């Protein structure tokens, strides 16, 4: 009797998912007289991905954010490689940020489809602040590092946000797969990038203040040579 109750309990607990089976679709449709074989529930969606909460839409927006940042960093890299600015190290730094963001956007798209969803290139995050119309990549060295630091923090904090949405204690939105994907592929590396950029701004700050600003032009030259080595 106890055994029966246990089994019944199990069936109830998993009821929400068990009703949703591909197997039922298959056994319903195969052997029927009709020619159709739709199998609507034979898909990669599990754990309510895309059905509840905003994790799925935020993942699409996250891919789009990486795409946008990738091309912005590419423009910064280009600007620092013109004959006037001529800072090969800064250019290399931005180029690397661009390459990384590009690769991440492709990985995110693949991950979205891995979870049975489609990619929406027009999706924006609810977390997104109003786009800055005065945005420019034509900034001086310290400004450009400041901007890069801010945009890298935005990427990291967006990952935190999606992680938080995916780990809320609710059976509808809890998604450990997304949480661990963000932890493994995003946040750790982002912390490194943020720390490096913050370190660069600290160095430049010291050069600007030191010796009544007399060091600046030479300091920027040396710092750029340094970036060429370390990036």
């Amino acid at each position: 009797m106890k055994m029966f109750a246990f089994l019944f309990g199990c069936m109830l607990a998993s009821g929400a998912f068990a009703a949703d089976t591909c197997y039922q679709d298959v056994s319903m449709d195969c052997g029927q007289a009709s020619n159709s074989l739709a199998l609507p529930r034979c898909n990669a969606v599990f754990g309510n991905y895309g059905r509840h909460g905003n994790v799925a839409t935020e993942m699409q927006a996250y891919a789009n954010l990486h795409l946008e940042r990738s091309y912005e960093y590419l423009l910064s890299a280009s600007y620092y490689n013109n004959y006037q600015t001529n800072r090969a190290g800064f250019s290399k730094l931005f180029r690397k940020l661009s390459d990384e963001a590009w690769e991440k956007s492709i990985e995110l798209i693949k991950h979205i489809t891995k979870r049975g969803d489609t990619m929406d290139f027009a999706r924006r995050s609810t977390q997104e602040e109003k786009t800055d119309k005065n945005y420019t990549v034509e900034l001086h060295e310290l400004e450009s590092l400041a901007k890069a630091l801010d945009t890298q923090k935005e990427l990291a904090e967006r990952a935190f946000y999606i992680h938080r949405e995916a780990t809320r204690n609710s059976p509808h939105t809890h998604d450990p797969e997304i949480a661990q994907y963000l932890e493994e592929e995003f946040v750790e590396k982002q912390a490194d990038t943020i720390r490096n950029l913050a370190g660069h701004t600290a160095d430049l700050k010291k050069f600007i203040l030191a010796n009544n600003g007399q060091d600046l032009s030479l300091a920027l030259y040396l710092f750029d040579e340094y970036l060429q080595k370390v990036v």
Partner: protein
Amino acid sequence: MKAVLFAVAALLAVCIPISAKQCNVNPVNIPKGWITMQQSCRGSMRRQIQTEVGASLQYLAMGAHFSRDGINRPGFAKLFFDAASEEREHAMKLIDYLLMRGELETDVTSLIQIRAPERKSWESGVDALEHALKMETEVTKSIRSVIIACESDPKFNDYHLVDYLTGEFLEEQYKGQRDLAGKASTLKKMLDRHSSLGEFLFDKKLLGMDI
């Protein structure tokens, strides 16, 4: 006396940090005679960069489509994701060329705009290959129009850029088009009597797998 000294000291304390806090180096003047690119050529190069970026985004959408669980064509997805990265590289090569010629000193930010790709789904692998071929044909056509703009400027025939576009870019375009056309043709022949099996096998071939 002390008050005067204090006032002077206070004034210095206020002034020095302000005058000293310059965070950037002033721009310098370099002779500009070597910068020879003309307006219409420059403009068409800039548009070409945006075209390549647009193609990269459209290829991403193709990669996304073929990665879907219900479509499940990883070989096609790989082909198109790789094509997206290639288009991005084309944009970077054109940017590097402009930089070599003394361009992109200003108006850098407006060079690239990100817009969601127009098309989001394809009926089949053949449909996507034929769409890709059509896209590449358009890109080739627009490279030709850049060449025309850069060689026919009455003030300056930009031989070097024209040579670069003809030798490197058109060559790559023609090879790419031939490759896509060949793939579409092989696939279409396979589909003749075995449509779903044909696409399945061709997809694994694109993945580099031998079945």
